[in-house]
Every structure is written in structure tokens, then in C-alpha cells.
């Protein structure tokens, strides 16, 4: 086997949460114009899907880049438990000052998962709906 190959492993997780897009930098009217329905004052929700991609050498003893028995509880704790059934604007301190657009959500999830100890985080992709997705990759 002379080819040099790169392997990555991707796992999908889910959480449901509500948010409201509203920026203190703009007037009520400007917020309404900019964010449209997403500016509705009581918030609205999505079934988010989080795709987590890790990379690194495959351990010969296990055949794995990382054991899902380690990755799953890590993502459950850092992301699913933290985000599931929450109002992102009020219940996550990171979104008190930052608008919880999915760009900012994916960035926050990436920041949390970057600490995964046994493989390199390569990419996080968040589907806000089946039509919209946002991703962030580690620069190689």
C-alpha cells in the first residue's frame, strides 16, 4: 500500500433549540428589515443537525481514528446537553452579546469541540434546516 491516504470520520448529532435574531447595533425597524421573520420577538426554533468531522492516524490496535465511545459523550456533554431544548439568546452566555445566527452557533460549537483530546477536529457543519447549512473547517 504505497498510496498516502487521509481518513476522516464524520458523526451526526441533533438538538432542538429556539433563537431570535436581533442585534443591539440596529434600531427595531432595521432589525425587522434585516432579519425579517427571524426577528419575531418571542423567538422560534429549529431541529439542528451537527456534523462533526475528525481526522488523524488510524490506531492499528483499534482500527479507529477515535473511539465513538469517547467522541459521543464528549459531543453530548459539550453540545447536545448545552444546546438542546434551550433558548439560545437567554440560556447560553455566549449569545447574550452575540446574535445566535447559525454562523455564530457553528463557531461556538467548533470552539467547544476543538478541545476533543484524542483526534484532530477537522470540520463542524450545522444544518439549521434541511435547506441551510453552515460549516467551519480547521485551516491545514
Amino acid at each position, binding site marked *: *500500500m504505497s*498510496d*498516502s*491516504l*487521509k*481518513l*476522516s*470520520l*464524520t*458523526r*451526526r*448529532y441533533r438538538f432542538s433549540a429556539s433563537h431570535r435574531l436581533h442585534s443591539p447595533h440596529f434600531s427595531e425597524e432595521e432589525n425587522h428589515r434585516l432579519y425579517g421573520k427571524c426577528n419575531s420577538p418571542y423567538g422560534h426554533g429549529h431541529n439542528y443537525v451537527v456534523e462533526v*468531522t475528525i*481526522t*488523524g*492516524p*488510524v*490506531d*492499528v*490496535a*483499534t*482500527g*479507529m*481514528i477515535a*473511539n*465513538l*465511545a469517547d467522541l459521543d459523550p464528549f459531543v453530548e456533554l459539550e453540545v447536545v446537553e448545552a444546546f438542546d431544548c434551550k433558548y439560545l439568546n437567554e440560556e447560553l452566555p455566549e449569545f447574550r452579546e452575540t446574535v445566535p445566527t447559525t454562523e455564530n452557533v457553528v463557531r461556538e460549537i467548533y470552539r467547544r469541540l476543538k478541545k476533543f483530546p484524542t483526534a*484532530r477536529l477537522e470540520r463542524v457543519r450545522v444544518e439549521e434546516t434541511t435547506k441551510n447549512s453552515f460549516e467551519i473547517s480547521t485551516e*491545514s
Partner: protein
Amino acid sequence: MIRVTRKVEFSAAHYYHNPALSAEENRRIFGKCNNPHGHGHNYVLEVTVAGEPDPATGMVLDLKELKDILQREVVDRMDHRHLNYEVPELAGKIPTCENVAAAIWHLLVHKITKGKLDRVRLYESPDLFADCTSDHNGDGATPEAGARG
């Protein structure tokens, strides 16, 4: 450059067990996947070939040809088989999604003569997949290739 992707499915059994480790270690590392009776998946394989379309045919490669290669090299070898016992390319390896994807890459890479094999993506379930690609920048993510003892 254009990327062309073809999808096929196969169903196979496997279990995870490293004979170099104790029974207890195997259970601890592999959990339910260590069940010696095995279990199975409906694997979905996406194979991507990259290249420039031939001006005469408008194709990077004939998808019928790719379909035949995937059938012969992958489906005929792996469909309704036990990956631990019946697939020589996986002998001595734990048939994880990562290792099966790498084995499929090696089965296909020299069989695709029009265009270049760009990516092998193997779904073990809709929520878990491995990607195998050429390591262009050599960032140390090269899989171990040797058989383990």
C-alpha cells in the same frame, strides 16, 4: 475539473475484536461492537471521480463503467458477507468504517483509468461515515496500512 459521484449500497456483518488484547480490554474498547456473534449494517458507498470531461463524449468517465467496477470490486466482494471472515482485503484488520473505506480505496484506485479517484465516502449508518482521500499535504493523518498481530 469536474467531480462525478456514484452511489451503491451493500449489506454486511462485522464485529470488532483485537486478538492481541484480553477479552476484557476488547469489551471495554469496542463495547457492543465486540459481540462475537457479529452485527450488520446497510452500508452506503459514495465514490467520487475527478477529471475533465472528454470533449467527444462530454463525460469524465462512463458511469456505466464505474457502476460495473463498483459492482465487481466492492459489492460482489462485500455484499451479504461477514467482513471479518470473508473479505481477504480486510484480513488482520478490524473492519471499522475507517478501515473498510481505506480497503475500498485500494480496491478501486488502480481500476479507475479515466479520471482520478477523488474520494471514497462510506456510510455505516446515516449518522456515521468515513471519508478516504489522497493526502495532498501530508499532515500526518495517513492511516496505518500494516496488518496487526
